[in-house]
């Protein structure tokens, strides 16, 4: 009984819960801001990189190469290292704009760099899944390469990749907590401060609860979309 009491006291003590709530909540709002900003940037930038990777012709080879190098590098590097490199490395360069941002901006930049690389691959799979005859049909009507992409290929690709894209965003939401390592006062940081002060871990549970409540609806929504798609595909196969 004694041990159980100690566990409960350390992790889910009601007083500590109440005490930690305001600070962790304030921190969590920073997570949400980083998440929305990074997601918006990722959605746009990843589409750009995916399109560059698909450019035809020999003259586009250097661009394609650069896009491949980028995705390989940032899919391979752990986010925490990218956060260190951006959050500590860039200020150290003492350049004008690049070195004078807040840790919040560096955090968003690190998340965006890493997740753009992931989402590029998601978009690319979507673009490749659109049958080439769709592109032929668009080009045969006189649409240019980019018009065919914009009006015919990309809209179909995006529809298909929404579930995997949301899955990546669930990862991104949680990874905003890693940005604590460069000193952003987000939920995990606030929880840690509390825990260091009161020798109690309930604050981490509070933060975890926030993340879980943010993730569950998105996860359910993603499952729902996948189920709808499967039902449709099964109906189409009959």
């Amino acid at each position, binding site marked *: 009984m004694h041990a159980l009491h100690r566990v409960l006291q350390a992790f889910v003590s009601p007083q500590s819960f109440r005490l930690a709530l305001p600070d962790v909540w304030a921190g969590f709002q920073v997570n949400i801001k980083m998440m929305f900003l990074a997601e918006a940037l990722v959605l746009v930038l990843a589409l750009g990189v995916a399109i560059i990777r698909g450019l035809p012709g020999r003259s586009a080879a250097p661009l394609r190469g650069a896009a491949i190098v980028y995705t390989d590098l940032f899919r391979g590097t752990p986010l925490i290292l990218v956060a260190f490199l951006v959050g500590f490395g860039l200020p150290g360069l003492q350049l004008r704009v690049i070195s004078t941002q807040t840790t919040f901006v560096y955090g968003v930049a690190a998340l965006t760099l890493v997740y753009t690389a992931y989402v590029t691959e998601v978009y690319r799979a979507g673009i490749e899944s659109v049958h080439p005859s*769709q592109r*032929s049909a*668009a080009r045969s*009507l*006189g*649409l*240019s390469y980019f018009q065919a992409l914009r009006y015919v290929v990309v809209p179909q690709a995006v*529809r298909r990749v929404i579930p995997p894209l949301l899955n990546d965003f669930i990862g991104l939401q949680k990874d905003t907590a890693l940005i604590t390592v460069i000193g952003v006062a987000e939920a995990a940081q606030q929880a840690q401060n509390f825990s260091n002060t009161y020798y109690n871990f309930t604050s981490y549970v509070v933060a975890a609860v926030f993340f879980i409540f943010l993730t569950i609806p998105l996860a359910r929504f993603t499952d729902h979309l996948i189920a709808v798609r499967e039902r449709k595909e099964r109906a189409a196969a009959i």
Partner: protein
Amino acid sequence: MSFVEVENVSKSFGDNVVLRNVTLEVAEHEVVCLIGASGSGKSTLLRCINLLEPIDEGRIVVDGDLITNGKVDANAIRREIGIVFQAFNLFPHMTVLQNVTLAPRRVRNLRRGEAEASARELLRRIGLEDKAAEYPDRLSGGQQQRVAIVRALAMQPKLMLLDEITSALDPQLVSEVLNLVRELADFGMTMIIATHEMSFAREVASKVCFLDGGVILEEGDAKDIFSAPSEPRTREFLARIIEAGRL
């Protein structure tokens, strides 16, 4: 001078020579049918005329313009040439009306209202005006293929290329599509039609070309080719078609 001149065109995919020295002339308002076994190069020839495939050798002239010298604006050529495919290839994420108005709006820069008015008029003529707001997957194959034809017509092409446009259709849906093509022919549209519908070819074509292994082996009046083919390969092909009950 012919409206379309295909001169000594050759085309390979890797080691696979798909077109060998193909020469074909089509006069304005003429309908030419391409017949031949599957794999003989009919689709490739049509795709080359529409610059969807680059050719290796030879030249293609359409309406007096040399289109295969690599210097032309391929987009500008393609908007003057309509092509309809066996698999319809409608855009599934767009309604019928959006399918038909996409190119007039984005390529010809028509205003939306203008593009929609003429699209509705075209749809009305093929009896599909009430399907304007539907998505393609709600239409029968015959309806989809007629929309695909109208989508090409909306660009007011000078030349239409039809690639086995009834091959993917249930037999009872073939005639509604062929009727539309017949109307186009009567209207004077210049067309090159790859088809397995031999009775239709006999009826609308002023000239029939038999392709075999990427070569135009025999060409001539529809009635000559069908009643008295001179090449044994043509005879063989037609015999097989008759066996399949399509002539």
